[in-house]
């Protein structure tokens, strides 16, 4: 009887998130299941598309920082999507550099004068990125 020893592979190290977009079911990258559930199969599900008239970063910044309608599908090769740029602006405006000046704006009010002033100096980079066309 011949015995072969196999070096193990890190089976299923890849979590197949990308597959979720197109496949109806996804396993987690290995066949050997356990008796309490067999192969783990996840339901596939497409990412939702941007709603019509989603808000670009600049529009969201001036109207409602807490909006839930920021565009996510407007990334370009040189620029992240509006959701990412607004998140960076929010971190600066609401948490790290202008939290006091922007308290109202970060609580649902439109951009106030105090918040405009603070972010124009203390969050200039994030602000410019958000306002970029």
């Amino acid at each position: 009887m011949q015995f072969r020893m196999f070096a193990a592979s890190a089976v299923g190290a890849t979590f197949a998130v990308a597959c979720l977009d197109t496949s109806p079911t996804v396993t987690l990258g290995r066949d050997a299941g356990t008796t309490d559930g067999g192969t783990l199969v996840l339901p596939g599900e497409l990412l939702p598309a941007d709603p019509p008239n989603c808000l670009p970063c600049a529009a969201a910044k001036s109207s409602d920082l807490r909006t839930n309608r920021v565009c996510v599908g407007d990334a370009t090769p040189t620029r992240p999507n509006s959701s990412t740029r607004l998140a960076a602006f929010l971190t600066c405006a609401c948490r790290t550099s202008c939290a006091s000046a922007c308290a109202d704006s970060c609580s649902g009010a439109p951009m106030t004068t105090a918040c405009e002033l603070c972010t124009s100096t203390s969050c200039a980079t994030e602000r410019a990125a958000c306002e970029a066309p």
Partner: protein
Amino acid sequence: MIPMRIPSLLVLCGILGSLPPIGCSAIVAADPVQCTSDSECTARGPDFQGTGCALAGPNKGFCVENRSASVGECTTNADCVDLTGPGSVCTVDAAQPRCVPLLGDDCPLTYGNPFVENTVTFALLGDFTANDPGRGRDLGNFEAASLALSEFQQQSSFALAGNRRIALVGCSQARPKATTARLAAAGIKAILGPSDPAKLVRVVEQSGAFGIPVFATSAAQNTAVSVPGGTSAVFLTGSSQDGVVAGINGVLSDLSGTVRAARNRGFVRVAVLVDGSLEAYAPVLREKLIFNGKTALQNQADASCANCYTAVSLTRDGAPIAPSEIAASLAEFKADIVIPLSEGGFGNYLARVEALPAPAVPPYYLAPFIDVEDASYHVELASHSTLQSRVIGFRPLRQESAYASFESRYRSFAAAEAGPGPMPSLQNVRIYEATQLAIYSTFMASRGGANGRFEGAQVAAAVPLVTAPGAETIDVGPLGIPNAVGALARTGKMNLNGLFTSFMFLPNRSAANAWEVWCMDGSGRYGATKRTMTVTGEWTGVPAVCGAAQ
């Protein structure tokens, strides 16, 4: 349905360093399957003496020395690093533990360390990734849940059985089914959220089979309760549609008296403005909004008051409708009372409407603050004294001192700079409260399981013990934690009292709502009046008249 599979590979010693119970002398041949029973192993010859057939796990179908260890594929999180890669945990509470990825692109946030062995993990669902459109709205929810967790971590009197720690992961709700299914398989013990009520049913469809409790802070989609598994595991801790409508009816009744007297006629004309997810209220209001002694639907059809109800959307095809168009609609309808049900920022919109040429008799506005205390009214209208007297609203009834303490803690926690951070939204508060409810329920579940082992279903089963009517009342917040631990140790139950939430769950699984009426004061603050609605729906105090001394 075609499952995608990465081809099975024969597994042996390369990973066995991380699986100590399985020695490297376990024998694997090139055969795709060696055995289906122990006897087949021993029949393979002297080299197989003492081996058994692994019936599950990564060595399934092979003869191994320590069969019991391979029934489950892991015993610790460390085992899973080699098996499934970083970001995976071993579901140690399951009868047959397995490695499941906990973190992925859809779960970018953590508080606490879910990879410390035996850690209990909660998941908060919301908009947290670059593919989500509402990070500005939901980041505060993660901070609120993290604050609740941090306050327990700082209490020496609080410990789960087995000294297990609790961690939090923040996951996107963009694909609620896929993400929830994975989290459920990873053995999370509770779900907080989702923030989008439209996603709740799909979450419960996946979590229900596991009995994992879902603490949803918005009850707009309470049909999730009827999803299999939801009846015992969904807890709607936010404002229910019926609760909101009860609040509107109460304030509308008060306001109608004022308006009828001012207009010197026997009826009022009411317009509701809806946008975003709150458009779900439109059909409910038609049936349950009461004024002029009739439902909105009856008012709409009543020729004697010239069809005195209308509902207007603030958006068309997802785009905001111009204030001038809304103003024209309201003027044409001759609205006496306007009820904006908006997700936020309506005060700004209202300022633009009011800046237009006003109708001869301008309307009153009845503004419910459901998930957000809309700061835009006071920013835009604080100096508008005549409008201040025409704006009245209600918000969740709260104890001011306890709320002020929470607000201060939250603003400090959320700020990275020395000054205070953003104000919490009402949704943030509810997440904070719901996290405390989940933690106390987990505490009880851990006490009930053997060796501190338990699953999500036990957490769901413990919720009634933590919200038991008649038991010792414990306020949410850090000061309540020692008292809660004492009460639970002595009697096995307590009655958690939220900043907003009574946690008195009604038969439809919604927490009963209590409201307080607010008016805007001269400095632009939303000051509480003495007019309140209790959790049993009774109104107390005299009807509030804004712009007058309260």
